[in-house]
């Protein structure tokens, strides 16, 4: 029997068995773990980033000076970098899986490669900006 063939309708809890990561000993990919770990951090970091960027400081009153002043704080700079890096990793993994599922074959592979390149460029740009302009 396949190790994944455990969707048992008669589970006492009324739910499929093996829904937890360790319930049935199923081996999951590193992407699954990376996505969940990043999600747990992002669920705190993204609302925090949004609140500070758009709620505390009004979007219409934001200037280069005010944003630079905020980024002068190394903690905020680190939080910004962490938020964006984790979001890129999380989003890329999810998008790669969706593309691979819907477009198997060469087109899916090409799209995945483009996606990874774009995400890598985004991460490089973020790192470059945060590391060179406020340090």
């Amino acid at each position, binding site marked *: 029997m396949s190790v994944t063939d455990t969707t048992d309708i008669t589970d006492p809890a009324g739910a499929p068995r093996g829904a*937890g990561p360790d319930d049935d000993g199923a081996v999951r990919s590193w992407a699954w773990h990376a996505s969940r770990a990043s999600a747990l951090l992002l669920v705190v970091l993204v609302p925090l980033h949004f609140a500070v960027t758009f709620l505390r400081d009004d979007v219409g009153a934001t200037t280069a000076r005010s944003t630079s002043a905020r980024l002068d704080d190394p903690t905020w700079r680190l939080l910004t970098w962490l938020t964006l890096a984790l979001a890129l990793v999380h989003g890329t993994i999810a998008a790669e899986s969706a593309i691979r599922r819907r477009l198997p074959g060469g087109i899916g592979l090409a799209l995945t490669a483009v996606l990874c390149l774009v995400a890598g460029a985004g991460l490089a740009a973020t790192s470059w900006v945060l590391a060179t*302009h406020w340090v």
Partner: protein
Amino acid sequence: MPSVEVPDEVASEDADGPPDVDAPPTAPPSPPSPVGPSTAALRRPPVGSRPAAPASTDDDSFAGIDWTGRGAEGGSDDHHDAGPGAGSAGGSGTRRLAVVAGVVSFAYVAWVIIDLVVLALSGTAYTTMHEALDSLAVRLVLCGAWLALLFHGLDGLRIVLADLVPPLRVRDRGARAVVVFVLFATWIPTALVLLWPSVRGWFA
């Protein structure tokens, strides 16, 4: 009358009624087995999976994504809909919402990166761009993005918690209600804060 030994799984099925009302009616019956009912008959394919696809556990999906890449389309909500009240608490509609929220969240991240790059290249351009963003339309877009971010995060948290604490799976409808409550309890006041600078002139 001789008693017939019924496996626990079969007894449970009888007690709970038909196990899967969504099962395709044309599914071929399992061949009779000399050793009793086949356990394969007690299993069902993941909700939404393609008939020809190999079996896949629903737990391989998260946030609408099949992590096995084997073609199953069962999303996280389908996974949790397998419990009591399945089908009435969300399902594919919620999964679609989760995907849309994820795409909007990704777009938000892309916009923040572009914003940072513009700031690094030209402070004047950055300030000019933000002055142009001071409009009701942009604030409404931001409110939509904020709603998507919140929904994506809260719904994902519900799924992670359901996996970490299996007893919570039977309370999935309650968890969904909590998600909706926290979502709007957070979003409505913050959306007002976002919109207020543009609408306060209406009350002057």
